[in-house]
């Protein structure tokens, strides 16, 4: 299974929540502390067989999870940040981008393209949390806009997997405007009655939730993902009291009416396939 190989290359960087045990072949489940072999995790799409904890995985792994084998065709592969503000904090943003590209093998925080799900053509985008926290700057915004345009032009259902801490600070107001840009393009798609399925994974917060991630015709979340506008730390600081158990988790968001369903990674493809059949 090609999914094994692909997943393996990226293991140490993909799973920021995972704790590497000495020989590098075992992972401790943050959900139930079970020690799991990486082969076992590969087989279960990086979910814990015991407690269903969902490890964070990268965009290339989601391609394997969702799309039919060898159907993915990447678009805007080379697009990268132009550092429009020549931003620097303790580090230059341009250096940060360069280093992240080198470390992750990705050019920015989203992978876009086309592919098939059970034989049905789709436009597909997937964010990568490991690229500067999956943050949305000009590149992510523009790639989503072009993906939506491609979906519009070829009448393809659009599927976007969100995994992001929010907008990218280092591009200032440019990043903010990507929220309007992406939402506008989705409005155009909606006018043409082309379905858009939004998949929210851990974490989906800030400007991502407050734009394209909440705008699906159907919003689906993976179990136990952190989903919200403000981060829990900021809310706690602002209100000065502890947050309730399960606050801002997928199940909480479902209960409050902002997503349609919580679906385990293992069932994601069949559920989406089912939805696509319905829409067609």
């Amino acid at each position: 299974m090609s999914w094994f190989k692909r997943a393996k290359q990226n293991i140490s960087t993909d799973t920021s929540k995972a704790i590497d045990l000495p020989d590098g072949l075992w992972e401790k489940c943050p959900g139930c502390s079970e020690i799991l072999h990486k082969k076992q995790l590969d087989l279960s799409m990086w979910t814990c067989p015991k407690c269903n904890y969902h490890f964070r995985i990268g965009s290339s792994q989601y391609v394997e999870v969702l799309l039919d084998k060898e159907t993915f065709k990447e678009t805007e592969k080379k697009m990268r940040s132009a550092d429009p503000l020549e931003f620097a904090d303790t580090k230059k943003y341009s250096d940060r981008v360069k280093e992240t590209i080198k470390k992750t093998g990705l050019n920015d925080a989203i992978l876009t393209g086309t592919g098939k799900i059970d034989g049905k053509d789709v436009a597909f985008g997937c964010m990568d949390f490991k690229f500067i926290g999956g943050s949305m700057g000009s590149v992510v915004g523009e790639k989503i806009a072009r993906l939506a345009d491609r979906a519009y032009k070829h009448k393809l259902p659009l599927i976007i997997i969100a995994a992001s801490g929010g907008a990218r600070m280092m591009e200032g107001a440019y990043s903010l405007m990507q929220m309007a840009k992406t939402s506008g393009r989705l409005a155009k798609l909606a006018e043409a009655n082309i379905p858009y399925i939004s998949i929210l994974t851990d974490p989906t917060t800030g400007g991502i939730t407050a734009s394209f991630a909440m705008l699906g015709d159907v919003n689906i979340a993976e179990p136990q993902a952190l989903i919200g506008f403000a981060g829990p730390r900021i809310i706690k600081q602002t209100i000065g009291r502890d947050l309730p158990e399960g606050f801002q988790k997928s199940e909480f968001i479902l209960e409050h009416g902002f997503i349609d369903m919580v679906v385990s990674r293992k069932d994601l493809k069949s559920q989406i396939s089912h939805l696509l059949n319905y829409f067609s």
Partner: protein
Amino acid sequence: MSKNVLDFEKPIAELESKLEEMRKFADNLYIDAEIKNIEDKVVNLKESIYKNLTRWQRVQLARHPERPYTLDYIYLMTENFLELHGDRYFKDDKSIVGGFATIDEYKVMIIGHQKGRDTKSNVYRNFGMPNPEGYRKALRLMKLAEKFNKPIITMIDTPGAFPGIEAEERGQAEAIARNLFEMSKLKVPVLVIIIGEGASGGALGIGVGDRILMLENCWYSVISPESCSSILWRSWEYKEQAAEALKLTSADLLEQKLIDRIVPEPLGGAHKDHQTMALTLRNVIKEELSELIKIKPEKLFENRLEKFGKMGKWID
């Protein structure tokens, strides 16, 4: 002398209070000449200070507690304001106000963030930080304007959407996202004016439009300089550097082609002269509306997509 004097305003305030003192004794020619001399000094000082403000100083002006807020502008520059309340789902959010108004021949829907001026009114207005019902009220009013073919003016002045438990429970993110989506499609002109603070999604939530204007001493960015400092520098102490790095002033945003026009403020800032500021803005609004109403309704959506589509910089 005003109670709210910013550090960089102090030299001016000192000269001005000296002037005030002298005017009390202005009964001989010698003092008259001296007064004239100091008056000139004040003007020169103001010009040099306000031309060379740092970005952080502009942020402070944008937050000046005596700065005019949405309702001040509404009362100073529109007629027949009729405030409308409530989102029809949950409650009436006091940090976003809106209603019908007229500006000369224009019947408009005017909507904006509203801050309070003292502790009590700030608590009432939640410091200009809306909950989801604020964005939903704004959208309801915009749809109402669309139904009756009236142009919309939105005024942005918020330190951000409120980060609270209930705000999350009621879908703060969804409310903002929905507004971005729906505002893109509105079939009436939308004129957006940043009048103070434009903090992130909480600002943009009423900020999608056909023309985006910014008063001279405002800031608009993806994050406040303080929060940016705390995240990237891991300390609250780097707000000045963060403000510089974020390039968040009106001049910056015009250069970045993210806004269309800067509205000049009276010397020293809008808080120095509410009347003049409101009059300037009223004239600018009339000018903008006269152009906007010429655009065919069916072109507005397309134009907005193109406008926001161009925003950003990337290497292909």
